[in-house]
């Protein structure tokens, strides 16, 4: 079992080393593609095992739980690794044309693969301190990717991104220290067993709030999201896309994991706070987006509002709501990364991402327009695309617990999302280009067209697949939610049922 869990972690790091050694040669970028393809295979194998056995766990270095470091894959962890691999593969193909030689020589592909390794590690670890280490791996490589190239805007955005994320890291670390002091363990399954037996539950809630703030910064929750719109529109489009797809979602994943597995003792308190935060996050994100006039800035604010939906699923804490959150996570990563990739192509052929300075994409590049419509409508929640089902499940879950206002907020935010998407459509695609030029796809070479559009088409196809055949995905999400709500399978897989 151990190799099965360790392969998705080892592969990105091996790829990173090879890509770093060959960074000045064209082979370096293909190694990144090959490594991510291999990661996809490894994660798919892991997934088939998880589907067959429920939860699988492996103890690293032969130290039994709860003393050694445990790797665990349950439904949620496995699907997150698969979706990470899919996104990473798409972005690494896109990067073939998007990343210039200078950035490659500085080690773009190595940093990218270390980031993927960190993300995969965060999804698979069953140990709290190990989670912290994976967060740091992810963080330091994301710092590098963000400022690679060193433009003024990147450095400026980087300062805010780095400082705010470091504060969250320190809160996370203090929380770990205090939790260890109370329980004497860092294994998450062991924590799930030990925390409810503690005498001082008030102190547990205090520590829970430290974790909520720490992960809230990572997930860009209201009111801790300011680093995200400051930084996400500054780096290369490949970097924006992978950040938008994965980084905040690791925060969401950590919140879901900790607040279903460990901190589920005082749900009335913690999850009510989460509910308020979720609603405020949705609303501020979508209103922030409405005020922006740059494709990437609009999309950045939409990440925030979409995070609100996922946290809404966690906050309601019913089987249906958690299923909605899991479904939303999967759908959102694909759609959001894709929209950023499309923004990159729009900039390449039309010259900018500033909506006032571009236009005419529908007339000159109808293929790009169609490819934009799929994720954009999915993000807004048009039936029958994937976003519709994700929002439908969450709204149904809110109505189930008679949260009329919450359901209303979720629906209204969906409407405002359409407003932003139609704004991009009207400005970038519909109106004529202000310079009178025609932004045709033929401005790109044949190889560039293939490398830029293929990943976009692939991700769009996934959106359509989830949209038209939602049944297996919903069933999967429901099983995943059941595992989250009843962690006994998780705990038994890690601790082997041994007392």
């Amino acid at each position, binding site marked *: 079992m151990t190799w099965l869990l360790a392969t998705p972690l080892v592969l990105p790091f091996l790829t990173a080393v090879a890509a770093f050694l060959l960074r000045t040669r064209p082979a370096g970028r293909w190694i990144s593609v090959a490594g991510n393809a291999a990661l996809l295979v490894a994660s798919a194998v892991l997934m088939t095992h998880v589907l067959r056995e429920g939860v699988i766990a492996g103890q690293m270095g032969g130290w039994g739980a709860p003393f050694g470091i445990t790797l665990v894959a349950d439904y949620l962890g496995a699907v997150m690794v698969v979706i990470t691999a899919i996104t990473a593969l798409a972005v690494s193909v896109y990067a073939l044309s998007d990343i210039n030689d200078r950035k490659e020589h500085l080690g773009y592909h190595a940093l990218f693969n270390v980031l993927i390794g960190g993300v995969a590690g965060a999804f698979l670890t069953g140990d709290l301190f190990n989670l912290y280490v994976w967060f740091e791996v992810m963080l*330091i490589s994301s710092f590098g990717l963000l400022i690679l190239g060193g433009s003024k*805007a990147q450095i400026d955005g*980087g*300062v805010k991104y780095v*400082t705010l994320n470091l504060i969250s890291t320190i809160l996370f670390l*203090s929380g770990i*220290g205090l939790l260890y002091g109370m329980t004497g363990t860092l294994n998450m399954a062991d924590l799930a067993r030990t925390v409810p037996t503690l005498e001082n539950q008030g102190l547990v809630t205090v520590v829970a709030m430290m974790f909520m703030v720490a992960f809230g910064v990572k997930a860009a929750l209201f009111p801790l999201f300011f680093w995200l719109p*400051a930084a996400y*529109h500054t780096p290369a489009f490949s970097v924006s896309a992978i950040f938008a797809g994965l980084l905040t979602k690791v925060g969401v994943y950590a919140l879901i994991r900790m607040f279903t597995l460990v901190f589920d003792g005082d749900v009335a308190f913690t999850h009510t706070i989460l509910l308020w935060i979720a609603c405020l996050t949705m609303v501020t994100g979508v209103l922030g987006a409405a005020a922006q006039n740059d494709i990437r800035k609009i999309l950045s604010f939409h990440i925030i509002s979409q995070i609100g939906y996922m946290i809404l699923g966690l906050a309601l804490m019913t089987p249906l709501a958690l299923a909605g959150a899991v479904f939303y996570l999967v759908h959102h990563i694909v759609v959001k990364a894709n929209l950023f990739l499309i923004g990159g192509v729009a900039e390449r052929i039309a010259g900018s991402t500033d909506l006032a300075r571009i236009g005419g994409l529908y007339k000159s590049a109808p293929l790009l327009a169609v490819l934009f419509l799929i994720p954009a409508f999915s993000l807004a929640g048009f039936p029958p695309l994937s976003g519709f089902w994700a929002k439908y499940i969450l709204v149904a879950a809110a109505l189930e617990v008679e949260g009329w206002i919450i359901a209303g907020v979720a629906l209204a935010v969906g409407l405002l999302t359409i407003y932003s998407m139609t704004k991009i459509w009207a400005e970038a695609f519909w109106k004529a280009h202000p310079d009178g030029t025609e932004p045709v796809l033929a401005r790109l070479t044949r190889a560039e067209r293939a490398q830029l559009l293929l990943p976009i088409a692939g991700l769009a196809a996934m959106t359509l697949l989830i949209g038209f055949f939602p049944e297996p995905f919903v069933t999967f999400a429901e099983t995943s939610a059941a595992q989250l709500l009843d962690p006994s399978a998780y705990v038994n897989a890690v601790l082997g049922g041994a007392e």
Partner: protein
Amino acid sequence: MDALLAITIGILVAASVYLMLARNVLRFIFGLVLISNAANLTIFTAGRLTEGAPPLIPAGADAPLGDVANALPQALVLTAIVIGFGLFAFALVLMFRAYTTLGTLYSDDMRIAEPREEVGK
């Protein structure tokens, strides 16, 4: 001993929050170093303190005899120090780059990525 360390952590956090509230990002970074050390001390203290009891197993025995110091928090702190050092080194270089490219160390003046709306136009 616990109380002494707790007070030290409190002072460190207070000083670092004061520094981090400054507009000068260099002061902010110094605050960050202090608070990360406060976090390290928190882990160390939370793992219970013992005096003069090294976690050594005598020759021939399988387990330590009697109470010994908890080695795990020290290992955790060591890891956190190493990671924190790396992050601090990066942050310091970033601030230096920010000073040379943006020409300022004041966060209020760093408005390249998010330009101020031009009021009244």
